[in-house]
């Protein structure tokens, strides 16, 4: 029933640990060759979902297809996947060469063929000089490259990455991130990547899947989830510093936030008595006087060189973060007015769902 282009299809996939449901019926379709990133706060089930795709966790209900093949109850080694673990999980008693070739030797591939595949993976990842070392003699970045190499050698349809960079230091993380992006371009396989790091998610993904408490909150390109969030959770989770989410009440055709009256622009407020107004820090501007403004008091300011942040408070105690590219310095206690371009305003209903214009 699936076309050749289908990289992977999850249908109503559920997972219970005992009586506790962890994944509540996930439906997801991934096209072949996509780089998909699962993001979400810790405990949202993103790793569990990945492990279910890998076959390391049993699926309580639902089905998983990889490349048009039903694999729900298949052994991990037969699913056409390869996985890179956060902790590398190299075989410490084997040389790098044996680590890379282990999967093939388990599949009874002839020795000369294994050697060829290992050499190719080593070339791609620049591991040639390290083939005879043990994992204990490698640095963190080299170990992670071996772990990725072990995945490449298996020539899988789908690569699974479980927070592969979180054990590395900041500098190495950036270079490995670029290396993974390059690898995706070079190999063209479907890749699923779990992370809680937004930068990794935004830079690597073709498609971001935002998860919360075992449910998919939104699926979309990085631009979509950033600019067009479906709900307050996605709006608050994607983006750093996070989007300002301000509680307001409806007063006729306008919204009242802590005594300031703002316009709803194109949004219809019918049927709502309270809304949540979403404004990203970089869309807020300090102005002297304009009709549509929010009055705030500066709590403290941070100067980071290129940009600065003003942490402000509204009259009712709600906090607002403002990103400043240029302009004058403000001190704690300064009273300011904030404005924004109408199209940057995002409205959500009181229960968090997006109200689209």
């Amino acid at each position, binding site marked *: 029933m699936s076309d050749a282009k289908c990289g992977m299809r999850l249908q109503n996939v559920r997972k219970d640990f005992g009586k506790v449901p962890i994944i509540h019926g996930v439906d997801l379709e991934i096209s072949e060759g996509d780089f998909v990133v699962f993001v979400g706060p810790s405990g949202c089930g993103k790793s569990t979902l990945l492990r279910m795709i890998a076959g*390391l966790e049993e699926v309580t209900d639902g089905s998983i297809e990889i490349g048009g093949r039903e694999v729900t109850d298949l052994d991990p080694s037969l699913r056409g996947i390869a996985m890179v673990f956060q902790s590398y999980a190299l075989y410490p008693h084997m040389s790098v060469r044996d680590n890379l070739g282990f999967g093939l030797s388990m599949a009874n591939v002839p020795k000369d063929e294994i050697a060829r595949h290992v050499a190719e993976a080593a070339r791609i990842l620049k591991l040639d000089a390290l083939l005879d070392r043990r994992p204990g003699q490698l640095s963190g970045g080299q170990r992670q490259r071996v772990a990725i190499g072990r995945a490449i050698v298996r020539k899988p349809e789908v690569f699974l990455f479980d927070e592969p960079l979180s054990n590395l230091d900041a500098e190495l993380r950036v270079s490995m991130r670029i290396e993974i992006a390059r690898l995706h371009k070079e190999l063209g396989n479907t890749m699923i990547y779990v992370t809680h790091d937004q930068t990794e998610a935004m830079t690597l993904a073709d498609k971001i899947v935002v998860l919360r408490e075992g449910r998919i909150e939104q699926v979309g390109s990085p631009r979509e989830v950033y600019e067009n969030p479906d709900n307050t959770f996605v709006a608050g989770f994607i983006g750093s510093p996070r989007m300002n989410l301000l509680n307001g009440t409806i007063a006729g055709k306008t919204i009242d936030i802590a005594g300031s009256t703002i316009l709803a622009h194109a949004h219809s407020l019918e049927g709502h008595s309270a809304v949540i107004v979403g404004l990203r820090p970089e869309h807020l501007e300090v102005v002297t006087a304009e009709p549509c403004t929010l009055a705030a008091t500066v709590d403290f300011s941070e100067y980071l060189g290129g940009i600065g942040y003003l942490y402000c408070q509204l009259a009712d105690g709600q906090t607002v973060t403002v990103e400043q590219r240029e302009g004058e310095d403000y001190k704690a206690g300064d009273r300011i007015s904030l404005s924004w371009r109408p199209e940057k305003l995002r409205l959500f209903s009181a229960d968090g769902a997006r109200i689209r214009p």
Partner: protein
Amino acid sequence: MNTAIKARRARKKLFGNTVFHGFGLIASFFFLAPFIWAGLASLRSNAEAQSPPLPPWPKNGISVDAYLTLDTFGAGVWQHTMNSLLVSAGTVVLTVIVSILAGYGFSRYRFPFKNLMFVLIIATLMIPFQSILTPLFIILAKLGLNNSLLGLTLVYVTLQLPFSVFMMRNAFDAVPREIEEAARIDGARDLKLLVRVLFPLVLPGVVTVAIFAFLNAWNEFLAALILLSDNEKYTLPVLMTAVRAGRLGAINWGALQAGVMVMTIPCLVVFLLLQRYYMRGLMAGAVK
């Protein structure tokens, strides 16, 4: 000024080293003395065997009389050594196999009453085995295994297992789960997974279990005495008691020392061979 400080430091260091190594030498002398004493005494000639123990070394040249005398006890020292080796090696092999499988199961699988069963296995350590010798004897008799080295081996394995299963479970617990999962994705399953991936990682635990099983089986006396009844089936500890009991009230001290050496050497060999597998940092580079 500076050189004075340096000289003082060097003196201090020299003093520290001297104390350190001196203490080590004295301690090792106390540990080695009995062995050296027994070894030298076993090389005395028959004529010297009954002379006072000091000095311990042979005065009229080295002789193997004591070992020849030892061979006249029981069914000959070779026979008894072979018995002991058979029983000990069998105990080691069976204990290692069973405890690896049990330890792996207790560490990785989820099944009902797992913890209760584990506690029960450990709890059997509290039962002095002398107290169950009679039932053991009856069970072996029913199985047709009384007076056989195989029966004795099985009893030793049973007694050795609680500790060994405990050791192996801890060894498997220390292996990161991700390594096993990586191996499963690589297509290693069941026995292949255990032999190719996990066994090398729990080797230090296996060596510990093997050494303990060997030493305990090698030195065990009471069960061997009670469960075996044929002269030519006795193990070395039983032979040694016969030697110590003496003949017609006369104890041949030379033969006794020779027996001590015969019993000690295999233990030393086993320990020296296996101890290098207690490699530190075996797991280095696996995770993190």
